[in-house]
């Protein structure tokens, strides 16, 4: 099966102002995500997850190596035609309504008008923003903004969804709804690639995970294989992989 998302020896370096001069954020990362799977991308803060996502989305150019979406180099805009992206911090144009925002993004994707209106109605119902569709986004709560974010990520009916901490800041009900949406997308044959710190959730929804630490890929594999191999839950596997040693209580 061809990889929908692939990185080959990806390396990203940043200039720093200290004496070293260069910080390696991602070090020779090679991973692949297959079609139809839910893939968890895990790592502690500063591991390089966001940097990797920035490369995949074309925000940052890699120093070395390559990244591909649907076999197309990520530096080409067409690579993003079939993806949806939900950033961790969701802010959208405050002077637009949810309807206008979705219509704008639909136009960027080149969707026909009739299809756009159908999708807007469907998505606003899905994320339960139908009553607030004509209100300006600046009047929305954080949870509502997160749901608008999910709707805009789905406007082009993407084959690959890239989610950066999708449940961050949501209450338990909100997190449950996001999980339901991810599972529904999986049933529809979509591919989901997301990063999260909620390892309990990851264990529930993900088929495969990759754990990255200090810019390097530490492990990649099926969740149940990892749990079976290490004879413990995913959280303990994670801590073991990143080399966490619990402090002994004096």
């Amino acid at each position, binding site marked *: 099966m061809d990889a929908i998302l692939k990185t080959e020896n990806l390396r990203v370096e940043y200039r720093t102002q200290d004496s070293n001069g260069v910080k390696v954020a991602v070090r020779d990362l090679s991973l692949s995500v297959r079609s139809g799977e839910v893939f968890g991308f895990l790592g502690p803060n500063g591991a390089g997850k966001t940097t990797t996502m*920035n490369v995949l989305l074309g*925000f940052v150019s890699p120093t070395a190596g390559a990244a591909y979406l649907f076999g197309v180099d990520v530096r080409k805009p067409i690579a*993003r035609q079939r*993806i949806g992206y939900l950033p961790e911090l969701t802010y*959208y*144009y405050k002077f637009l309504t949810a309807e206008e925002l979705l219509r704008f993004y639909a136009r*960027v994707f080149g969707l026909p008008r009739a299809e756009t209106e159908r999708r807007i109605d469907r998505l606003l119902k899905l994320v339960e923003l139908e009553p607030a569709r004509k209100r300006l986004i600046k009047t929305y709560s954080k949870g509502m903004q997160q749901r608008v974010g999910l709707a805009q990520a789905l406007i082009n009916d993407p084959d690959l969804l890239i989610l*950066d901490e999708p449940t961050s800041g949501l209450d338990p009900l909100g997190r449950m709804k996001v999980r339901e949406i991810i599972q529904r997308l999986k049933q529809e044959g979509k591919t989901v690639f997301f990063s999260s710190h909620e390892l309990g959730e990851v264990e529930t929804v993900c088929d495969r995970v990759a754990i990255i630490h200090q810019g390097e890929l530490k492990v990649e594999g099926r969740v149940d294989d990892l749990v079976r191999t290490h004879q413990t839950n995913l959280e303990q596997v994670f801590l073991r992989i990143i080399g966490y040693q619990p402090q002994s209580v004096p």
Partner: protein
Amino acid sequence: MNKVLALAGVVFKELYRRKDFYVLFFLTAVLTLLLASVNLFNDQRVVRYLKEVCLLLIWVSALVIAVVTTARQLPAERESRTIFPLLAKPVTRGQVLAGKFLGCWGATGLALVVFYAFFAVVSGTREGHWALGATFQALWLQWAMLAVVIAMALLGSLLLSAPSANSTICFILVGGILLVGGHLNTVALQQPEPLSSLIYALYFAIPHLEIFDVRDLLIHDQPLVGWGNCLLATLYAAVYTATFLLMAWWVFRRKPLSA
């Protein structure tokens, strides 16, 4: 092109949903109408001073709208993080820049139409005749000038992180060019070398925005600028606009963005 127009549409919506334009138009209208009500030796037919003040207010307002709207576009997108879901779509940075430019320029043009319509009504009713050709020409030339200013402000917004700094520098540059730009050759001829050559080089390098200021022709009922010269001036503005936009694209495409 559809993507560029979609981006421009968002800028349009932003302008007419903010208060800037309405406040400036209200101020212009109030000041003009107040001045129109002043008793000047019991003569109701004095009109040129009114045209001058109205046109000055229009110029200042249009510059404020153009510079302030443009200066905050890209920094606001970065600060509010709306640039990330946007660039995660199949849209290039060049298209984003083009969309922002078209949106700001179009929105400013629309504002100019409203301002000049008010001006035409005030001056027409007072003078008893309607100089529509001259008014249209003044509007067109000012709009062409604002294309250069907007492109300059877009470039500035990529080089300077703070919109306020960018706006201030743009205002100073534009004001300086309007007041002094056309006279740099006179100043250069009075200087010793190598200063003379430097100033002359600067004179040729800067966009001569004062060319587009035909307020005196409109105020004093002078004949129209020849349409050939008008076209040449438009081309002149287009070249500088394209230059600034190209420089902005060159900076923007290399800029790393971290979500």
